[in-house]
């Protein structure tokens, strides 16, 4: 088993562990933190599978934007619902560990040469190649997804307007 495969296996096992912890967690805050850990491990998996751009987007979109929205939604839970789902019930060092473990994995495997010539994906996920694909062969799909994102943004504005009316 090469170093890249060991890196992939470790990130996959951690992701599965965090996913199972999320399943058995009653507090939504704690469940969100376990999900964040799983999503970060998936990003590490992407990185060592030869798709660093996807790993970056996974962190920015999921572990960043979506998880911030999830936490804001939990904080906005009113009254009794907020009290029921709110408490963290998770030791802070464990919560910090979900963030620190991926960093430690990347640092460890990079220092050992995990992204060398033996890397599984090589240069497969380069942004130039992905850009050519997205705006070439998959241009129609890219446009459709763009329209979908625009409609999602519009729907949020619509919810807000109707909520205030």
């Amino acid at each position, binding site marked *: *088993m090469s170093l890249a*495969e060991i890196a*992939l*296996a470790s990130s*996959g*096992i951690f*992701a*599965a562990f965090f*996913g*199972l912890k*999320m*399943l058995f967690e009653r507090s*939504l805050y704690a*469940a969100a933190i376990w*999900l964040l850990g*799983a*999503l970060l491990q*998936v990003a590490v*998996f*992407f990185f060592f*599978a*030869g*798709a660093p*751009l*996807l790993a970056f987007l996974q962190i920015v*979109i*999921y572990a960043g934007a*979506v998880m911030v*929205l*999830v936490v804001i*939604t*939990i904080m*906005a*839970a*009113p009254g009794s*619902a907020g009290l029921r*789902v709110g408490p963290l019930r998770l030791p802070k060092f464990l919560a910090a560990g979900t963030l620190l473990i991926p960093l430690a994995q990347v640092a460890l495997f990079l220092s050992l040469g995990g992204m060398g010539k033996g890397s*599984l*994906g*090589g240069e*497969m*996920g380069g942004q130039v*190649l*992905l850009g050519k*694909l*997205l705006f070439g*062969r*998959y241009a129609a*799909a890219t446009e459709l*997804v763009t329209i*979908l*994102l625009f*409609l*999602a*943004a519009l*729907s*949020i504005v619509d*919810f807000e307007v*109707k*909520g205030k009316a």
Partner: protein
Amino acid sequence: MTALVWAVTLALFFSGLATTVLRRQLLAMLLGLELMISSVNVALVYSASLAHDPDILAVVLLLLAVAAAEAVVGLGLIMRAYSRGIPAETEAFAELRG
């Protein structure tokens, strides 16, 4: 190695599925959906790395965007339920209307 990745993918997917099916809070169900989508992405990226096929990565990138849109709309609906005083749990949405 392939068997291990498939086991991880299945564990992630069924954790998400169980969260979506067994939990009553809409937000927890949404978290389960996110986990299921991530598990599919793991399988696709691993397949791409085995086949050295960047086309699959382009599809994963589009999937990421679609999943983000789905999460935003879902969270917006939950916030709307909160603002109207409706508990964001499955019992409150047991009937169709319209």
